């Protein structure tokens, strides 16, 4: 087991190396709009140097001279020392900005993830136990609709209903207008109030997949021989489903849930952007649009790392929870 994990980790490092290189090459090949814009702005100032001179100076300053390969290894070197450089757009160290934004995203992600589990798993199980009934059809269609629902459309509908028509929540942002006048508890409630719509969006959009997954697995388990045995023993249907079947359904679910956990840190780019929630997703969207290479680099590599960790966790968990699975 330890050997397996070690091997996978080593593999992940190599994959990450190439992923980071592709991303870096991609970012370097793009027109460096950020530097150009900055140089143009600086050269406009009275008595300033010419645009070309600024361009030259800024290119050196931002480490954009030199070839892609040497630039990549330079980036890699400082990254290994834990230095991700300074964000161009936010003009603070990348890690500072990351630390400022990631926890909000994590909190939002975690809350919606918990809701997702609470809603999706029971519904998936109910749908499976009543296969081909009206309930099953309804739940299946809801799950499919959740998967098919474009985030931005659903968010707009929510805004129209709850912000415009009912006036319960603000359209954008994390804090209200009178945030500074509120007590500490009031400030917390204000933030919570602003997070309601983003969380609903996240839950509705992402719960469909888990619901379907639960249903499929539950169906598989219900067709297994040991369930037939349990029924043959004369156990009550309740006990068969909630004791024997449920535990076995949990195996794949735990695996997939474990694999999803790391991605909670990568934020919800679209949802955060739509609601202007200053989390990691929104911050990185802004950075990417502005052509902020250090921050985008960091975010993209970080996301790739999370995916790798997620896959690893899922595979290891699979072996841990299911004694039938052995990994070499």
């Amino acid at each position, binding site marked *: 087991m330890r050997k397996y994990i070690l091997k996978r980790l080593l*593999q992940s490092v190599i994959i990450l190396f190439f992923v980071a290189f592709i*991303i870096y090459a991609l970012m370097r090949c793009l027109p460096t709009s950020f530097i150009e814009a900055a140089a143009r702005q600086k050269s406009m100032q009275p008595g300033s140097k010419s645009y070309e001179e600024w361009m030259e100076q800024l290119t050196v300053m931002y480490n954009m001279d030199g070839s892609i390969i040497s630039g990549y290894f330079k980036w890699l070197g400082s990254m290994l020392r834990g230095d991700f450089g300074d964000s161009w757009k936010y003009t603070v160290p990348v890690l500072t900005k990351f630390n400022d934004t990631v926890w909000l995203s994590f909190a939002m992600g975690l809350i919606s993830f918990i809701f997702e589990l609470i809603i999706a798993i029971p519904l998936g199980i109910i749908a499976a136990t009543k296969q081909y009934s009206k309930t099953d059809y309804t739940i299946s269609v809801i799950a499919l609709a959740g998967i*098919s629902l*474009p985030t931005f459309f659903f968010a707009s509908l929510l*805004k129209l209903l709850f912000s415009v028509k009912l006036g319960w929540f603000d359209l954008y942002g994390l804090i209200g207008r009178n945030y500074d006048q509120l007590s500490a508890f009031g400030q917390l409630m204000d933030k919570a109030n602003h997070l309601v719509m983003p969380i609903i969006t996240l839950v509705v959009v992402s719960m469909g997949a888990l619901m379907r997954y639960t249903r499929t697995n539950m169906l598989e388990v219900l067709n297994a021989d040991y369930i037939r045995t349990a029924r043959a023993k004369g156990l009550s249907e309740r006990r068969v489903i909630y004791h024997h079947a449920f535990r076995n359904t949990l195996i794949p679910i735990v695996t997939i849930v474990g694999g999803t956990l790391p991605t909670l840190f990568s934020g919800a780019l679209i949802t955060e952007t739509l609601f202007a929630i200053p989390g990691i997703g929104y911050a990185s969207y802004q950075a990417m649009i*502005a052509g902020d290479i250090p921050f985008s680099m960091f975010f*993209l590599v970080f996301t*790739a790392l999370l995916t790798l960790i997620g896959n690893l966790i899922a595979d290891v968990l699979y072996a841990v929870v299911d004694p039938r699975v052995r990994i070499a």
Partner: protein
Amino acid sequence: MEDMKDKKDMLETAAPSEEFSLSDDRRVKVLSPGQLVLKRFFRNRLAVTGMVILLAMFIFSFVGGLLSPYEEDQKFYRVDAQAKDYAGIVHNEEFRYTVGDKELFKSTVHAQALKAILQGKDSFEYKGTGYTLEKLTDDAYVVSSGGSPVGIASKELVNPSAQDGSVSFEFSLAALRAKASGEKTFTAEGNEYDIGEDGIITDKSGTEIAYVSQYIVRAVMSDVFFSRELKNQLIDAVEAGQKSFEYTDENGVTAEYILKYDAANKSWDVKQEIDTKVFDTYSAPSKEHWLGTDRNGMDMLTRLMYGGRISLIIGFVVVFIEALIGVVLGGIAGYFGGWVDGLIMRIVDVFYCLPFLPIMIILGAAMDAANVPSFTRMMYMMITLGILGWAGVARLVRGQILSLREQEFMTATEACGIAPSRRIFRHLIPNVMPQLIVYMTMGLGTTIILEATLSFLGLGVRFPFASWGNIINDVNDTFVLTNYWFIWIPAGVLLLITVLAFNIVGDGLRDAFDPKMKR
């Protein structure tokens, strides 16, 4: 169990032909695996509904565009009355100065003259020069120095009637004198003129030269000249206290003029309300435009049809690229195994890790900076989406081929000595197809959502092309979100049901392909 049921069905379908004996083969209708799949598919009511929706959507998008009386980017106009600031009218209550001699009647002298008028003096002195004041009426004085007039201070002014006309000082003086004394004619610069009760001055041939008036009409725009008639109308309206009137000018353009008294400046602001052709933006659903018009004054329903066309085409092209790369690479990896497999699978791992959406956003922003034209942009987007998405297909195909390779029928093909290419394309690929078709159907839905999301963010399909995503993009404007449901809700609903239909059909196909399915 399934087989038995199918046989029963077959027997039922062949039941009327009684003449065959029980053991006769002709009694049994033989169905190919494909027919069986179709049969199972059509038995699934939900999947059929999805299929019907998709069909309707295709007709809507591909045929609808042809049937629609409008073009994709045809703009509509409406005539709208736009009021713009046109003129200002002041009833002159102060003395204004007409200068005859620039040296002797400077602006400093104006003040001295005014002072003298207000004090009721008939002469004053400024810097050693003596001036005399001659009173014509209470509102008009002539300032002279050394016996000859150098300027006029009056509340009434002599204005030229023609656009490029001008009036000389001498003319003004003579005209004001004549008006003050009530004479009907006067002579200036050797010509004789008539002056009417209303202050209109005409020459001997009856042409109007100038007029005397206490109203000053100024144009807001410097290139506007008021015809005499319009000026009269305006002044009449001011005197009659009218709020508005209509006037047709010499070019035949009718406009409404709205007058408003501005107490602060003691003047009347005149707004000209003229019918202007403007883009018919955000007009509500009507008979001509069933779903109204959008921000650019284009017919919404037509935009939706063309948008659907683009969204669907992008979906298909992207999925096709994904499948092409994925099947080839996945097939190679699965069939050959060994180090080829290892290498390809590591590449797949790398592509699997690349964050999809962020990369598309960065590319979109970069294309913005490089001003890539809309059409090229769409091409790039399809290619990138395809290249980023093939890893999943490759994994699926490889996994399938790995398991199929070990099965008996493959050993049989080998034993029969069938050539490897035939083994791959005749025996392996067809067995991968079911999973592939299901994956691709679902992938179509995902791709369409992704494209719509990018277009929504303004980083995908761009104007003048329509896509369901960039139609909804308007909702970023809170005013549209609040007031114009018909701009964004129909596009969103179409998007939702199309993707939903793709997913339902994919689901139905999966069930139909699975021979273990109970139904």
